[in-house]
């Protein structure tokens, strides 16, 4: 079950994925989501840094390089708070499954790598719901760097950790910064009881393990009303990402 900070249990389930960039966590969450929808569960999804009301401010701060380690930390906390208040908590109270791509552990790892106090950032996020299962996709630094950097992408200022001042070179800075983040993740495995998944295994094997871990948690979870289009989604294993735009409410029986 998912738990409020005061220990009260919520009827829904919160599954979150964590890991450094290039660990493959988003891919796994995507597969998990399709599977759960296919099984007919009611699934809400929330992505790091995506709050409609906060995002514009974060974007401005990053683009203009206005963020310090503390303001970076606070604006991301505001983003999660908004998504919790608006999306995650209502869904969990209704008994649904919520999947989150990155959660508080991303802040604990990144913000501490940027120099804020580990104690303060943990207190800052004391409002967050405790996840049912927190998956940590563990990959060696070299592997994740290879996955991200092979195409020589343009790295953004904060993404590369250039604000931390580890190196002037974006690629070198990125590698050093990711290394620091990885260290923080590793420290958190025991502290928060993260469920470690070996991110170097084949995709299907990882997914199989994730599903096995989640399976026992699914009893009594809210199911979506069966409907004609959901059957199609289940059978054809597509999301229906754009269906909400074209299907009026009344088509739902």
């Amino acid at each position, binding site marked *: 079950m998912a738990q409020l900070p005061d220990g009260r249990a919520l009827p829904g389930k919160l599954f979150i994925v964590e890991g450094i960039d290039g660990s493959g966590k988003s891919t796994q969450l995507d597969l998990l989501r399709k599977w759960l929808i296919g099984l007919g569960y009611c699934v809400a999804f929330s992505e790091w840094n995506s709050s409609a009301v906060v995002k*514009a401010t974060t974007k401005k701060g990053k683009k203009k390089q206005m963020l310090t380690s503390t303001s970076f930390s606070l604006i991301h906390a505001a983003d999660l708070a908004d998504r919790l208040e608006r999306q995650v908590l209502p869904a969990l109270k209704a008994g649904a499954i919520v999947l989150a791509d990155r959660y508080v552990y991303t802040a604990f790892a990144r913000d501490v790598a940027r120099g804020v106090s580990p104690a303060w950032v943990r207190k800052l996020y004391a409002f967050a719901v405790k996840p049912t299962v927190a998956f940590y996709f563990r990959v060696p630094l070299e592997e994740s760097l290879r996955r991200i950097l092979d195409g020589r992408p343009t790295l953004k200022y904060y993404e590369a950790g250039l604000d931390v001042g580890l190196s002037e070179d974006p690629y070198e800075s990125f590698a050093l910064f990711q290394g620091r983040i990885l260290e923080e993740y590793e420290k958190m495995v025991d502290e928060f009881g993260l469920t470690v998944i070996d991110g170097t295994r084949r995709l299907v094997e990882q997914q199989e393990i994730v599903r096995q871990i989640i399976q026992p948690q699914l009893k009594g979870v809210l199911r979506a009303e069966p409907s004609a289009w959901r059957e199609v989604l289940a059978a054809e294993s597509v999301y229906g990402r754009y269906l909400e735009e074209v299907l009026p409410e009344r088509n739902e029986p």
Partner: protein
Amino acid sequence: MTKIHFYGDELAGYTRKRPLPGRLIVLEGTDGVGRSTQIALLREWIESKGYAVQSTGLKRSVLAGKGIKEAMRGHTLGILTTNLFYATDMVDRLEKIILPALRAGFVVLTDRYIYSIIARAMVRGVDPGWIRDVFGFALVPDAVFYLHADLPHLIPRVLNARGFDYWESGMDFLPHRDYYEAFVEYQSRLLAQFEIMAEEYDFCRIDATLSIREVFQNLKAEMEDLLVGMRPISPAEAERELAEAQAEQQAKRSR
């Protein structure tokens, strides 16, 4: 000299090596109590004594000011989000405006500080420990002047100025659908909260039911002592010192 003292965990990346020869002075109080009028008067008075003044207030950060205003206009902010958004605004101004100005020897006058945010959070049922932890990065000011007036004094002022506002009436969480009733209820709760906080944060109480002139004179009397030992500074010198302090802040960030 502003003592380098934070309410909780020290602001990340902050260096204690540099002294803060300026003064951080806060004016607090509920809506309609006359803070901005007094700040305008004080600013002129302090400048006339030969000191440089920087004035600031909530929602004025370059980073988050606009975002907060937009979200509030749409009445779409939850209570946790509001507090964290305000904290972002606060730290941006602390790092970019307040600390550089204090370092350059300015008197910084701030229209509200963390206390209003904490009071608003408290009346909305936010965890008291959590909100204080979040604002642990805030520098302890040299003085907090708490302008207080009771509701019979506040209501006509608010009505004369701009009428009752959605947030200033607590319409986001109170069950009242009537602005007047909600305003009375909300502001009463805020006043009670400020009373509790007055001791915790060592507020200097200023009776704001008096005339504007009397309030100003009382504030001046209290402030004289705070300014003792400050070095008068020419406007040109002040500009230069501030630019230097800001550049230093900038350099630290992208070092």
